[in-house]
């Protein structure tokens, strides 16, 4: 019953949003705000001729590459800084610096230094995300339960087993938090990277449509991409989290 009514409320809210959009489009009657149906037609056409899947695929590949890179480096640094006071002191100011560099600056510098190449694009996105991952994971590494570390040490289970079965499970909630906010941040930055220096991907397309003043296509790409990201969140991250948290009461 509770589920049914919450689904109903969600459906109603979606319909309301579409209605407002339609109403505004009728009122404004301009190319700047195409009505929902027109956007839907552009979307269907784009999916049919393969344009939208192609560019979303390219963008997703960049998101995936930068995401994996940022998570791997961020988690490693986060653990190291959370466990070692010396390393924490050494890298803390670097962290503050990188946290505060605007994404746009990193992107431009990467393109200037390494050229308009794929590696520069992915590195720029990863560099933007790494500091956030480090901060979140470091918090987790600082709060590791010393009882469990003593257990691992007194039974001599070894470094590899300790990392995999004692440390990482404790860090998991922090890694998931970093991954969630990471995905949201990364795909937005990837679009900027594509706009500034790539010749394909959703960001590039949006920029092209901006120059053509084709707002319907911009809407179509945005909606398609948001849908894909939502699917990744519900079909990928959420079940993974549920599986790893199954021991919780």
């Amino acid at each position: 019953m509770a589920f049914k009514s919450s689904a109903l409320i969600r459906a109603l809210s979606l319909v309301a949003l579409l209605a407002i959009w339609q109403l505004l489009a009728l009122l404004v009657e301009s190319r700047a705000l195409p009505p929902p149906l027109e956007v839907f037609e552009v979307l269907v056409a784009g999916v049919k001729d393969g344009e939208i899947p192609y560019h979303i695929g390219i963008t997703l590949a960049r998101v995936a590459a930068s995401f994996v890179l940022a998570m791997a480096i961020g988690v490693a640094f986060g653990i190291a800084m959370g466990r070692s006071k010396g390393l924490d002191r050494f890298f803390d100011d670097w962290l503050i610096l990188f946290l505060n560099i605007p994404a746009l600056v990193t992107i431009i510098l990467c393109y200037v230094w390494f050229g308009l190449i794929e590696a520069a694009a992915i590195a720029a996105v990863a560099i933007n995300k790494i500091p956030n991952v480090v901060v979140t994971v470091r918090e987790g590494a600082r709060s590791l339960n010393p009882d469990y570390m003593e257990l691992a040490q007194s039974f001599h289970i070894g470094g590899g087993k300790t990392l995999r079965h004692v440390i990482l499970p404790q860090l998991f909630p922090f890694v998931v938090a970093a991954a969630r906010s990471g995905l949201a941040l990364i795909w937005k930055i990837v679009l900027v990277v594509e706009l500034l220096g790539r010749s394909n991907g959703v960001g590039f397309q949006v920029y092209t449509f901006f120059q053509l003043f084709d707002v319907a296509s911009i809407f179509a790409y945005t909606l398609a991409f948001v849908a894909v990201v939502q699917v990744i969140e519900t079909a990928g991250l959420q079940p993974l989290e549920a599986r790893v948290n199954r021991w919780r009461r």
Partner: protein
Amino acid sequence: MAPVTHLEIDIRQKSYPQVGRAPAHLALEGLKMTLQGSEFVCVLGPSGCGKTTLLNLIAGLDEAYEGRIALPLAPGGRRPVMGYVFQNPRLLPWRTVVENIELVLSPEQIRSGLVDELLAATGLEAFRHTYPERLSLGLERRVALVRAFAVQPDVLLMDEPFVSLDEPTAQRLRLLLLQIWKDRPTTVVFVTHNMREAIQLADRIVLLSPAPGRVLADIRVGIARGDRDDTADIEAFRDRLIRENPALYREL
């Protein structure tokens, strides 16, 4: 060369440095004791006398002390294996009972069937795949006991493993411990502040002073193991202990 089977402890001094406004603390000073192979020794002392500190030093968790601890040499000259039953069970909540036990075992030990044997002996078979948060404290303590025995320790350290259980449960676990230990003898250092528990379990009781802990008395429990089910014998021994060692009564 015959393997060295005894555990020799000679701690000149163990202190904890000052932290913030908490002053430095001298935990142990001039503490000497020797345990023979497969001997069950209870270390009895008041709260805060450094009993847990002593176990952590033996376990190698803390190396910042003056003195020497010589562990028994295991057969074949390998490093002696330690089993540690902590005061709280310290089971990893994200691993089931059997996963918690297998975490500390080698692949050969996992294959050997010893875990099944121990789980059966402790009545834990039904909880094999249960997560610790669903177990009662008494059951968690059983798992911790099985985990420590499953490594086939040369030295078994136990830190008040039955504290904060109701007395019947604690008593069941003590008998279980004695049963497992009889089948798989090993040198045991069992820390407690419960005199009756010490008399029931130990070959020998080592009495520690308040901090800084040192040995006040070393008492052989002269009751045959078969007669210890009789509480009257234990009470009589306890009365005699208190009479002969007035310090005991003062401290506990």
